[in-house]
């Protein structure tokens, strides 16, 4: 009995306390309620949940908020299929929006069959580690090392390494998420709309024979492309630079006289070289200098 007498006040107190707090919480829920558009959750459901950031927003949730607010057209999501984006547009009753497909492009064509190696790199299997160890042994200090940091960074399987040790971007799978651009220690990747068809696949800043000695497909700064299409192409630091703000005027005429095929015209999953570009028939890697 004594026990019950002791316990009763405590029980009453706890129940009363619970009741008071429950009322406070119930009031707080009413008072502090934040109205959130229920469509945000639904739109988020329709997004691919890749959280890749290609749309420019920090994740799918933020993008869903932006589309519901009308700040971003649904087509900005590059991971979703166009049909899925159309579904979002229909659901929200907004226009799908015009969004040109953007893909990652590599500014190097120096595979093992055309680019010389000066030394053999042995160490951690990563481009970044190779760059820290004397530049990785490739004769061209600007060229792709082919150890596949970009391949590894790609979450969409849009990059594979070809038989010459160069990464190839599968345009259909590429979502322009920027991961490979960050991964490449030599800054060879950049994002471009597919309408940018004129492309300089080289970053070698040397001219003439100095560049050709290192790689057969290097830009040797002859300047022919800039002569043929002076409005769009200019020579800068011994390299042809395409001014994409004048992309409307770009035409394949610029690639025709390129002696090495460093400047190319890109069609979907196809690289077109000019008629004057020297033909590369070698399929095997070049031997390492001095071995």
């Amino acid at each position, binding site marked *: 009995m004594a026990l019950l007498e002791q316990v009763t006040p405590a029980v009453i107190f706890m129940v009363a306390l619970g009741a008071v707090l429950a009322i406070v919480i119930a009031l707080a829920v009413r008072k502090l309620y934040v109205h959130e558009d229920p469509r945000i959750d639904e739109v988020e459901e329709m997004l691919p949940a890749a959280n890749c950031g290609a749309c420019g927003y920090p994740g799918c949730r933020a993008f869903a908020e932006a589309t519901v607010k009308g700040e971003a057209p649904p087509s900005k999501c590059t991971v979703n299929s166009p049909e899925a984006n159309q579904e979002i547009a229909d659901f929200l009753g907004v226009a799908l929006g015009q969004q040109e497909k953007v893909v990652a492009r590599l500014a190097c064509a120096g595979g093992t069959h055309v680019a010389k190696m000066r030394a053999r790199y042995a*160490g*951690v299997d990563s481009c*970044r*580690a190779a760059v820290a160890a004397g530049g*990785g042994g490739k004769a061209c200090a600007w060229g792709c090392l082919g150890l596949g940091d970009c391949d590894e960074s790609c979450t969409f399987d849009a990059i594979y390494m070809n038989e010459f040790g160069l990464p190839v971007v599968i345009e259909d799978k590429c979502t322009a998420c920027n991961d490979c651009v960050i991964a490449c*220690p030599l800054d060879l990747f950049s994002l471009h709309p597919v309408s940018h068809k004129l492309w300089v696949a080289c970053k070698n800043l040397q001219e003439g024979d100095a560049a050709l000695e290192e790689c057969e497909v290097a830009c040797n700064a002859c300047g022919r492309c800039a002569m043929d299409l002076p409005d769009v192409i200019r020579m800068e630091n011994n390299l042809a630079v395409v001014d994409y703000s004048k992309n409307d005027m770009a035409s394949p005429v610029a690639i025709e006289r390129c002696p090495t095929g460093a400047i190319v015209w890109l069609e979907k999953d196809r690289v077109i070289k000019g008629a004057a570009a020297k033909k590369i028939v070698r399929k095997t890697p070049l031997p390492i200098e001095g071995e």
Partner: protein
Amino acid sequence: MSAITHAIPPFLRGGTFAHGVHPEENKHYTAGKPIQRFPFPRELNLLLSQHAGKPSVPLVYPGQEVVRGEPIARADGFMSVPLHAPATGVIKKIELIPTAKGPRKPAIILAVHPGESQEMRYGAPRDIDTMSPEDIIRAVQDAGLVGLGGAAFPTHVKLSPPPEHNVDTILINGCECEPYLTTDHRLMIEQPEQLVKGTQILMRAMQAERAIIGTEDNKQDAAEAIRRVLPKDGSITVKVVPTKYPQGAEKMLAKALVNREIPSGGYPSAVGLGVYNVATTVQIGALLPWQRGVIERVVTVTGPGIEKPGNYLVAIGTPLRFILERLGFRGSSQYLITGGPMMGETVSSLDVPITKGCGGFLVLRPEDVQEQSIPQVYPCISCGKCVEACPLYLNPCQLGKLAVKRRYEEMEDYHLFDCFECGCCSYVCPAGIPLVQYFRVSKAMNRDLKSKAAEK
């Protein structure tokens, strides 16, 4: 008595630091070989960025004749130094040349006049003892002096600590703990007068009362040679510490010589110290009284792959190919390393020139490397050998695991940026994990991510 002192671990007895490793010294190749002048090549490739900081700005144009010792590039701001012509000749061009680090950098190509006596005609004597500390610091920059121990950090920047730091002691680093290298060893034996003179100049510039020249106990002859020429007032002393790697690191040396701890991320001046390398100090002693600049340096060319190893006085800008062809290298393919085997940079091109920071050049044959290396990388079992070796008390084991998982940002919580890449952890790792290489990648990644975040 000795039994008692030996029971205490050396780092508690003082005179050294805790942890570290004892790699094979291999100094016998060149330790007994006096410094010899190396012939001039036909062309010198003078990189405009010999040092840490901003590259120098060329003062010459192609076709211009220059005299040995004449300035050919000026400093670009405070974090930069000028460059002087190492030989009389003609400027050929300014072009991009390969560097030890990899990327091509602009360099002045100087065609040396054949048949020229290369007598030193530049420079005039001046009284260094009456100069003010500010003038000395300016003179150090004008001489193009950088840390000749390897980091190539501009010396005048080290001489200008923040005003709240009061430097009372100068430490001269003569430890040369890197295996194979004997540059500083020979300089201490052959040019102790210049070393002492340089130390006195440094003391005046920093207004320090005393200086300690520290060397390891495998270089007793060097300590003896310096003791013979020390000034009588007792302001400079020589201290011999036990041989251990990395004794020559700034932080380790401060701990060993004066038992002070340089704070993480801080400069030695924060604890009242200034640390300078022997080769740098010798150049200060030799150049400043004559208003001259750094045009040559002592380079140890060594290793089992070299026919005639030795210590050579080489003009800055001499291509490696020229040195190797003169000294003869054995076998076909080699491992070429500038600096020592522990912290040196692998070289991927023979056209890399000698720079101010290059104190040694090591050539190993594939068989020498195979003998030592672990055939494959085994998984980490957290044995903790690296933890016991790390002189900074970091946890390389944990850092390595995070690096493999690419959790680079998390590594900063484990003080990634305190690591100075001494290589002790990789050296002791029984699993053959290239820890230091991982850390280099992680640091580069972290820096990249930060700069890219800053861009946005």
